[in-house]
C-alpha cells in the first residue's frame, strides 16, 4: 500500500500539492502505479494561467493516459523539465523528483487532507 505524505494536500483526481509558495503539484503514487510506466508528460507552459479543477496536461503510459488537473488557480511559474525528459521519475519518486509544476496561487480549489485522500485512494 502507498504512503501518503502528511505534509501534502490532495485532489480526488490523484494530484498532490505542497502549498509552500510557490505551490508544487504532482500526481500521487496511487495514480502513477495505476498508469504503469509513464512515457510522456504534457505540462502547462510557464506563465500560463491555470484554474482549479481544469485540465492542464496529460500523463501517458503505454497502457493508458490520464488527464492532469490543476488543484489550484494561479500562474504557472516553473515546470519540471527533467521529468518531461525522463518521465519514469514520476513512477519512481512521485512526491520528490517527479513533481510536475509550480504555481503562484491566487485561489485553492477543493483539496483533500491526507486522511481523506487515503480513504479515497485505498477504497
Amino acid at each position, binding site marked *: 500500500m502507498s504512503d501518503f505524505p502528511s505534509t501534502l494536500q490532495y485532489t480526488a483526481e490523484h494530484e498532490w500539492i505542497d502549498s509552500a509558495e510557490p505551490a508544487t503539484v504532482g500526481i500521487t503514487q496511487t495514480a502513477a*502505479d495505476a498508469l*504503469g*510506466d509513464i*512515457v*510522456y508528460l*504534457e505540462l502547462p507552459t510557464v506563465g500560463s494561467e491555470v484554474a482549479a479543477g481544469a485540465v492542464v496536461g*496529460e500523463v*501517458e*503510459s*503505454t*497502457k*493508458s*493516459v490520464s*488527464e492532469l488537473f490543476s488543484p489550484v488557480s494561479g500562474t504557472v511559474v516553473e515546470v519540471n523539465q527533467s521529468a518531461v525528459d525522463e518521465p*519514469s521519475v514520476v*513512477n519512481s519518486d512521485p512526491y520528490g523528483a517527479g513533481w510536475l509544476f509550480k504555481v503562484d496561487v491566487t485561489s485553492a480549489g477543493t483539496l483533500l487532507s491526507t486522511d481523506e485522500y487515503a480513504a479515497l485512494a485505498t477504497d
Partner: protein
Amino acid sequence: MTETPTPTPAPEVVLSPLHDEHVALGATMTPFAGWQMPLRYAGDLAEHQAVRTAAGLFDLSHMGELHVDGPGAGAALDHALVGNLSALAIGRARYTMIVQPDGGILDDLIVYRLGDEAYLVVANASNVAVVRDALAVRLEGFDASLTDRSLETALIAVQGPRAAEIVTGLTDPAHVDAVRDVRYYAGMPATVGGVEALVARTGYTGEDGFELFVPADAAPGLWRDLLAAGTPLGLVPAGLSARDSLRLEAGMPLYGNELDTTTAPHDAGLGRVVKLDKTGPDGEPLPFVGREALAARAHATPSRVLVGLVGSGRRAARHGYEVVASTAADAVTVGRVTSGAPSPTLGTPIAMAYVTPEVSAVGTELAVDVRGRREPVRVVALPFYTRA
C-alpha cells in the same frame, strides 16, 4: 419442511492456477474476462523490452481450451470454422476464425491437430462460452464430441529470443531436439520440467517463443522452474499490459478491438484465413457456416480497411479515437482507431485503425483526434515491428 431454492450464485471471479505465484511476485492484478490476471509485475516497459531482447514468462491460463474429438472431428471443424482443418497435418496449428452466418467474427482461434481424430481449439477468454456454444450446435450431425477443458488446463508462454534456450533447457533429453526444431505454428507433446505438456511454437508477441499447455495442478511447479531457469538469461514474468503492447507492435489483432461481430475477416485484412474452396468428402463445396456471406465479401469492394498509423508527435491515439483526413479543424472523419499506444520499441505513437479505402494507401498523411487535438499520423504497412 420445504427446501429453500438455492439462489443462482453470482458469477465468481476465476483465479488462475498460477494466482499464488503472481501474488508472491508482487503482480498488479486486473480483472480480465471474468478472471483475475497479472497486469504487470515490475513494470510494463521492462517486461516489454525483456521479451524483445531476452524472454518473458506469461500466464495465459484464462484462454479457452476446447477439445474436439472423434472420427468426424475434422469435418465438423471444416463446417464450423472458416479454415480447412481436415487438411491440417497432425502436429500442426492454424490461425482461424469462427464467424456468424452473416460473416461477422465470433472469435479468432488457434486450432491444433493433436491426432488423427483429435483437435484442440484455443479461444479467447472473453469468448469461450460463445465459441463453446456455437461449436456444440455446429457439431450436431457429425461424429465428434466437444469437451471444454479450459479450467483444468493452464497455459504458460515463454516468448523472446532466449525462449528456445530456456524451454529446451528444461525439456526431457528425449524430446530436446524435437522441441528445438518444432516449427512456427506447430506443436508436440513433450516433457518439460517433468510435466507432460503440449509444446507449441506459437505466440502473440512478434518474437520466437513457445506456449505450453499443461494440467492446471502442474502449472505452479513448471512456472517456478521456468522462472528459475530463465532469470539468468534475462527472462522476467510479463503481464497483460506488456502482452498488449507487444502484440500491437507485431500488428496482431485483438478480439474486441480489431475484430468483433460487425467485422468480417476480409475487413481485418485476414481474408486469407477464409477457405471458400474447401470441399466435403464428396468433393462438393462445403457449406460451412458463413460461407455465403464471406463469398460475397471476398469479391466486394471493402467499405473500410485495417491500417497501421504512426504518429510524428508524442500523444498516442487510443481505442475508439477518430481518424480524420488532416490536422485541419474541419477535416472529415475517415475512420476509427482500434488499438493505439506509445510504442516502446519504436519510440513513437502507433495505432491500428479502420479507415475508408481511399485513404488507406501506405504513405497517406492523416490525423487522429486525440482528446480534441489533431495529431498528424501517416499510414504504414503492418506490422510495426518485425524481429530481426
